[in-house]
């Protein structure tokens, strides 16, 4: 694999929180390379640092130290505006609790990221319908989230993550609130995204879910202790 195919390169990434007098190293020197169209599962117990890693990869958090490159751009110390821009244009988020806005319709929820995209979009409704079609939810466009089942809500959330054509989708326990059948459907949906050049990283503590991924990274105490790629 050469450089052009890598989407993320992390070197010596640390994220330290100060809690009272104590320093907590949520990430304690992470070296990681993620390539385009990889499907990665990050596993670990709670407190292992997997969520912090997701937040750093999703530009929601900045590392305390270390080097970080995203699509060959040095993003180690970019400002809040640039991070927001990267979040809106390059990253899609899928959460365990779906986090759809209850007052908006399904279509409006899916369109929401376009509101914050700095590039002008002409037909945001059309784009939303395309994204909903992609996850098989176009028939529910005018419903509100509370009229949907958990599995349906997560599919809508995935459509929302897809609408800005992201390079990377980050999913934090995306199947945590779903039953077995829906868990399978969602994971198949995720897997199908890889063909579209999207890179997927999901955090889970469910080993069964992790089996869907090509590459499994296990974290413990802020460090990567196992990486199936290496």
């Amino acid at each position, binding site marked *: 694999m050469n450089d052009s195919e890598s989407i993320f390169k992390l070197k010596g990434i640390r994220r330290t929180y100060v809690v009272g007098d104590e320093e907590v190293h949520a990430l304690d020197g992470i070296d990681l390379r993620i390539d385009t169209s990889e499907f990665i599962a990050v596993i670990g117990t709670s407190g292992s640092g997997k969520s912090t890693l997701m*937040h750093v990869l*999703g530009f*929601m*958090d900045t590392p305390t130290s270390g080097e970080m490159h995203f699509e060959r751009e040095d993003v180690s110390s970019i400002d*809040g*505006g640039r991070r*927001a*821009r990267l*979040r*809106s*244009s390059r990253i899609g*988020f899928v*959460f365990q609790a779906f*986090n759809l*806005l209850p*007052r*908006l319709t399904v279509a409006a929820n899916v369109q*929401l*990221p376009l*509101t*914050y*995209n*700095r590039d002008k979009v002409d037909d945001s409704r059309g784009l939303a319908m395309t994204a909903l079609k992609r996850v098989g939810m176009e028939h529910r466009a005018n419903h509100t989230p509370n009229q949907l089942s958990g599995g349906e809500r997560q599919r809508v959330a995935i459509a*929302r993550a897809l609408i*800005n054509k992201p390079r990377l989708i980050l999913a934090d326990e995306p199947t945590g609130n779903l039953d077995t059948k829906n868990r399978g459907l969602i994971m198949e949906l995720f897997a199908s995204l890889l063909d579209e050049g999207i890179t997927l990283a999901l955090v889970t503590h469910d080993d069964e879910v992790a089996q869907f991924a090509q590459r499994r990274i296990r974290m413990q105490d802020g460090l990567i202790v196992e990486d199936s790629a290496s």
Partner: protein
Amino acid sequence: MNPIADIATGARNGLLEIWANKVRSLLSMSGIVLGVAALVAMVGIVQGMLQNMRASFERSGGILKIEVQEAEAPESQQHIASISPGLTWRDILAIERATPLAEYITPIVDMRWERFVANGRREGGLLHGVTPDFISIQNRELSHGRFISETDIIQKSPVIVLGDHVKSDIFRDFDTAVGQQVRVKGDVYTVVGQLAPVDNSGLTGGRRYNWESRLNFMPATTAMSRYKGSDEVDKIEILAANIQELPDLIAQVENTLTQTHRSIRDFEIVTQEEQLAEMKKLENSFVYSLGGIAGISLLVGGIGIMNVMLASVSERIREIGVRKAIGARSHDVFIQFLAEAVVISILGGLLGLAASVGLLAFAREFIPEGSGINVMPLVAMFYGFLFSSGIGLLSGIYPALRASRLDPIDALRYE
């Protein structure tokens, strides 16, 4: 996104949010609604009443008018005060002769309240003896007939000009009272003219008691000879041609009267400047007290909006987290919440303006002297709207700042 699109999006989100929380939004708006309605309605009412007062002031000669009244002679002249003949008809003649700057001049021979009898009906009214210039000084209009003429003065004619009040009572069955006869204190007078009704006096009473419409007039000479039996007058009213000549006119009148009164200062010359100053003072005190009240109610409205916005921010912490995660900058969140506050206050302001029109229409109907009230005082409405929007903007800043400063990770974890 450009700033205008940001604000448009923010306003749209704000409207959605307001619609989703109708009751809460309405309650938070109520302070602004009441504040704006009170502000505009009170300004409208006060403006209307001041307008009436000003009109009445202008009608009675305005700033150009000076009045000569009898006064106590100074201490040093008390012992010889009796050598002065007092304010008499001779003063009128002297001023007419010696004071070219006096544009119009009339004595007022005040016969106070009198009973007017005709057609088997009787009605009370005020009776003044005046000269033809009176109608020019007081800016009164005739609806029928003529006013008192020079000939009437010379011949001491037994004629009378009736005000609207007496006419419409005694001669209610006639289109005009002109040509009719009316009996006052035993003497018979022919009605030669009838004054047009005066809408508002603004100074006293309601439409039921309008002192200007109760005034009736006869020639000053008739009044003096038939009624008083002396040539004394109660007051002299003089109108200057223009404001520049007013000081000279006062000096001329003073010189003339000093001669006719044999140097006794038993008169005073009163200008309308004092009344005007009083009116200005009244106007200012209205503006300040009303401004204070309206300011306080708008402040309370603003606090209401801030309260609701803070509650709204705490309620929607997770939503803020989601919005930030999918790419909203702090700036976008700030604009969204600020726009919501502004939209609430603008809607409140508009409702308040609508309410104020209703209040003013009501006041116009039911307040005495209310017919001068403008139902849509546009300037006051403009400022009311501007203030309410400004208050919304100010009270939205702090909640919007709080929302925009939330850390997306913490916000998403918030339960």
